[in-house]
């Protein structure tokens, strides 16, 4: 075991010469991936939404750029803070998470039939988005606290219940997509922390029973736990042609859009997007727009940026100076992976429609800003690790 002093000070770090100076301790590749995705997002939204609001072709793109800028500033600020402090405020963070979700019920505005957001002067704050980061920070802290008793069933069930509670609240908003993200985050944190395989097997069994109960048994007994449209979304992807009018329609149109893009895209001829056949083309289905407008090449570029992003997440996870950072990074990684694979999978017909945004690509203030906050945490973990390593006289490999 290492006994070297870990408490390195910021002053020492600043005094030091080296490559860290250039980026202020930030991970340049992670930053590159984020900026690249943001650029893709702005360009795609410019192309896709120019005719959406008559007389104001730049309505969405101007806002998206503003959200990106705010997010970027927030990311830089957060990266300068030692995330480890947040561990002490775990109860507060968890309380804030629950509180924000509950507040939505009281004051929230209704968007497309769901009550998800609090109206702020500048934009609609979707608390379930912000909740993702809060949950990551709180759950990671709880897990670190119970690290010695990690192998106990009680730990696993407590952590899962801590995640399940806000997840259920969010699903009831109804925002099924975010609820599922919460569960993925919890599982990833437990998994990386080292929870026993048998626990995951048990959780898998419970999940299977739950799914059967919610989707088959309860409806058969006349109890609808999910809203009918949520049910349709979850089942429509199996056979989109069967239900072409409603949920199947979105997925069919998305498939047609992506497929029609071909190798190099249709550019201005992207009629699925431009003539509104593709619903939600600047938010949930933005990847279909990429597929149609820029083809396989464009989609591959975006996916490569996500691959880069996830690789850097995993890398930062491994170099973290402490377990808390590792678990926070694991949660964030899980959040990104979940959203990217579910969202992209949904647009190409291999995943159900659960209504999650594509991080950084989808239009929307809450999503963009919260994603940048998560990236800020990752950068903080990276910066702290680098400082620590520097203190130990080691150069951190990228």
């Amino acid at each position, binding site marked *: 075991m290492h006994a070297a002093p870990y408490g390195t000070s910021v002053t020492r770090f600043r005094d030091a010469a080296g490559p860290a100076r250039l980026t202020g301790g930030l991970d340049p590749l992670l930053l590159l991936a984020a900026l690249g995705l943001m650029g893709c997002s702005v360009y795609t939204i410019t192309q896709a939404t120019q005719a959406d609001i008559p007389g104001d072709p730049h309505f969405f793109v101007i806002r998206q750029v503003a959200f990106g800028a705010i997010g970027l500033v927030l990311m830089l600020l957060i990266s300068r803070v030692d995330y480890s402090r947040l561990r002490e405020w775990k109860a507060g963070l968890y309380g804030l998470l629950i509180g924000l979700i509950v507040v939505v019920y009281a004051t929230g505005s209704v968007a497309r039939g769901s009550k998800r957001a609090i109206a702020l002067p500048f934009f609609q704050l979707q608390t379930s988005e912000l909740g993702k980061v809060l949950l990551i920070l709180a759950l990671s802290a709880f897990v670190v606290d119970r690290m010695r008793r990690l192998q106990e069933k009680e730990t696993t069930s407590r952590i899962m219940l801590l995640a399940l509670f806000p997840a259920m609240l969010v699903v009831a908003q109804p925002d099924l997509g975010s609820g599922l993200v919460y569960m993925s985050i919890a599982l*990833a944190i437990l*998994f990386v922390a080292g929870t026993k395989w048998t626990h995951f097997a048990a959780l898998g069994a419970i999940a299977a029973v739950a799914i059967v109960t919610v989707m088959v048994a309860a409806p058969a007994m006349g109890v609808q736990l999910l809203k009918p449209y949520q049910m349709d979304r979850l089942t429509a992807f199996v056979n989109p042609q069967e239900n072409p009018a409603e949920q199947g329609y979105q997925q069919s149109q998305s498939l*047609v859009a992506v497929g*029609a893009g071909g190798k190099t895209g249709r550019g201005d001829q992207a009629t699925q997007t431009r003539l*509104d056949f593709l619903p939600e083309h600047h938010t949930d289905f933005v990847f279909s727009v990429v597929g149609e407008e820029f*083809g396989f090449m464009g989609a591959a570029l975006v996916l490569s940026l996500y691959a880069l992003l996830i690789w850097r997440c995993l890398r930062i996870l491994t170099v973290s100076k*402490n*377990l808390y950072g590792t678990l926070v990074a694991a949660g964030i990684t899980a959040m990104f992976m979940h959203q990217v694979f579910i969202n992209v999978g949904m647009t190409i017909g291999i995943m159900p429609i659960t209504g999650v945004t594509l991080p950084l690509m989808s239009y929307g203030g809450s999503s963009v800003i919260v994603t940048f906050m998560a990236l800020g945490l990752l950068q903080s973990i990276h910066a702290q690790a680098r400082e620590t390593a520097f203190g130990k006289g080691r150069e951190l490999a990228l």
Partner: protein
Amino acid sequence: MYMDDDGRRPSLTPQLALRVAVVGGVALMAFALIFFRLWYLQVLSGDKYRAEANDNRVREIKVQAPRGEIVDRNGKVLVNNRTGLAVRVTPDKLPKDGAGRHRLYNRLGRVLSLPAGRIQKSVDRQLKALPYSPATVKQDVPSQLVYYLFEHQEEFPGVTVEQVFLREYPHHQIGAHLFGTVGEITKEQKGDDRYRGVGLGDRVGQSGIEYQYDRFLRGRNGASRVQVDALGNLRGQLRNVRPQQGRQLRLSLDLDVQKAGQAALGGAAGAFVVMNVNDGSVLGLGSSPSFDPNQFSKVLRPSDYKRLTSKENGEPIVNRAIQSAYPTGSTFKLITASASLMGGLITPDTVQYDGGSLKVGAQTFKNAGGAVNGPVALRKALSVSSDVFFYRLGQEANGHGDGLLIQKWAHRLGIGRKTGIDLPGEAKGLIPSPSYRNKGFRHYQRCVKKLKPTPQQIAEGKCGFLDRPWSVGDNVNFSVGQGDLAADPLQMAVAYASVANGGKIVRPRLGQRIEDSSGRPLQELEAPPKRNSGVKPEFRQAILDGLRSAASDPGGTSATVFKGFKIPVAGKTGTAQKGGARADQSWYVALAPYPSPKYVVAVTFEQGGFGAETAAPAARKILAQLFGVSQNGPVQGGSAPN
């Protein structure tokens, strides 16, 4: 794994490395899955999805092609097109709920002055037949109404106004029975090879010439390809395919002859045919009473339809020249003569004594008007229309061989069968025969036995009129065109033509030539004669001479009618009794100019009395127009009996 309370972790433990590797592996697999899926969708199936995307956005709006015009032999326009405005409803824009639709139909009905119920019924019927294409509410609406609809568009969801081509008949009643109607293709027709390439909602010929020559007359519709968005709003024009008008059809009809013929009928129930004897081309074919076909261009009102088909109005819709068969009276003698000559009953010079009547069994058959003609041979018998001469032939034929000599020759000359004219809906008519009559009588007997009708019901024909079996008397009646015989003017014209054209049984023809819109010929429509009558040339000549004598020699039945007429005519009168108090059917069939006739004119009036009184003068008027000769003052009606 040891950790202090701060959760500090020295470095990457093997366990963490494994778990991170698992997460990374999951990510790798997911990326691989997505890439393969994208490759499949975009690179392998890109064309398919691109086609689907285009299907989504491109709507083809049909641009109706005008039908070809129909002109007479001199190029005078008989049928052309005009544009009209049609009010239609588009099914997918209609209110979804029944009540909303009902309100719409009510509003529309007030504007178009149609009962809402009828609109609903008509729209439902059309949408049932063709679910996705617009249904026509009213075919030809004035433009003020259209402006009103445009100004109040939001009150009329799903209602559109389209420009359509409608048939126009500049000569109104002239030739009305020939052209037929145009209407949307029916479901049954859609499967027919005849209509290959015709789309749903396209209009095709449904009757008459329009039906017969639809293949040429219908144009090729154009299309306007437009781009629409997901809500169906127009978002730009793509490409236009111009509609192509149908071919022009030139008929052998002569507008002036047709006019003269219809004028000669003068509104009385009857029909006329003017035909070239050599090639069967029809110069005039008309029926009276007539109607104005322009009313078919609009959506026909039930009351109009009733008027066109009611017996009280004389059923104007019926084309009596080819669809109504009548006993022909003495005009049939040409056929009896041909049969008797060919059957060896007589030679052209065999003299028989006409004492004014002939006793057959218990029946006595008299000459019309009680005339006594003395000794007559064939020519004289035709000239003065000696009934007794032909009665005797009818009697002899009944005992000759199988007794069907006249029936057989009537059939060969085209009686009792369709002439094959290029008009649909021809009637066959009837040649009376023992088997026909006996079969009918058996039915009559069964009917009387079973239903026990009152004498009044029998008189009304409840069990048919065949109240006795065939007897020799029937053949005697048949020989002079009385009794059950039923033939139409066109059949008679064909039979008469064969005497003048070397024995050819022609196939009457209205269509002459297919032309482009500027009148350049594209295709001649030819109709080879169906067969040869088989009547020997010397017999034909004898008959023709007899017909000439009838129209020219003193004592000839129509000599007075054609007195002073510049063109030498050969012709035969006919007066058929129809039983009861009904006036006689009047006939005249003329061949001119003698001795080598070029045209045959057949005229009949349902209630004309003696052939020489009405039909022959009408034929003279037609011949005068045909040959361009003046009428030389008022035409005298002959008064001589047949």
